[in-house]
């Protein structure tokens, strides 16, 4: 009996970290970027924090109601965003540590946009048993770097529904591509 209890406790102890930790780690070197940034945002919200925050989101406020709906299925929200006074304060090697994790199994890049102006966007999705289990957005501009990791069942469509709320412009889906001579070349 004692052995069974011990075995159960050990199994629980070993199993806990798997579910308790985010599977994608924000690189440590990003913290150093904050020192060089004129503005930085560091948000780390795990499932318990999201649950706590969700309880304080109002159903009557349209913005908050939208977020409340979105957050109910999430396990974590992690954001690192940096704004710099001048260009060249970060290099793509700074985000390589996170990119390399996104090359791992389960992740697939659904969007990759690169321009010679240095405005790059990448969107990665994690498949979790046929469903979307997470989303990562890497948004790099010459003086701005943003990494967003949303852990849990989320659809990019749902996130884009935030457009028109919370000061995010609404995306006009009928907009046609504007030819911009400055933009050039795909990335890979």
């Amino acid at each position: 009996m004692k052995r069974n209890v011990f075995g159960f406790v050990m199994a629980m102890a070993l199993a806990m970290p798997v579910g308790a930790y985010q599977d994608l780690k924000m690189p440590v070197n990003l913290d150093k970027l904050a020192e060089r940034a004129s503005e930085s945002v560091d948000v780390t919200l795990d499932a318990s924090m999201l649950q706590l925050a969700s309880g304080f989101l109002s159903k009557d406020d349209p913005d908050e109601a939208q977020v409340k709906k979105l957050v109910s299925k999430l396990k974590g929200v992690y954001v690192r965003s940096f704004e710099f006074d001048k260009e060249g304060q970060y290099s793509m090697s700074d985000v390589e540590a996170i990119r390399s994790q996104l090359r791992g199994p389960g992740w697939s890049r659904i969007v990759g946009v690169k321009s010679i102006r240095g405005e790059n966007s990448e969107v990665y999705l994690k498949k979790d048993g046929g469903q979307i289990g997470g989303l990562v957005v890497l948004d790099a501009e010459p003086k701005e770097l943003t990494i967003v990791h949303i852990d849990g069942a989320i659809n990019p469509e749902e996130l884009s529904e935030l457009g028109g709320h919370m000061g995010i412009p609404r995306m006009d889906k009928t907009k046609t591509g504007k030819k911009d001579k400055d933009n050039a070349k795909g990335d890979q």
Partner: protein
Amino acid sequence: MNEFEEQLKQALSRREPPSDFAERVLAIARNQSRPAAAARLRLWFHRTRAWRLVPVLAALLMMTGGTVYEQHRRAARGEAVKEQLLVAMHIAGSSLHRAQHRIFDVETGEVTQ
């Protein structure tokens, strides 16, 4: 007898007290023999052994205070976390919006997928 002696005689002459004098004196005496409110409370406190409830009341007060403080702390933390979440969602939505915008903006060949 001079004038001073006359005045002294008048001042020391016998006068009858007012008719309610005895009543007033007795009433004052009665009031003084009654214990003051604080003393009565003290007496009641000891007679009923209510002092035994003091630790219980103190514990209840502390528990109530603790609960109220905890609720206040939780509310403050919840509001702070909510603000963080709204900022995170704003950044996430904006980043995705920019990505979509870039897809629309660049030529088809520039979009890699």
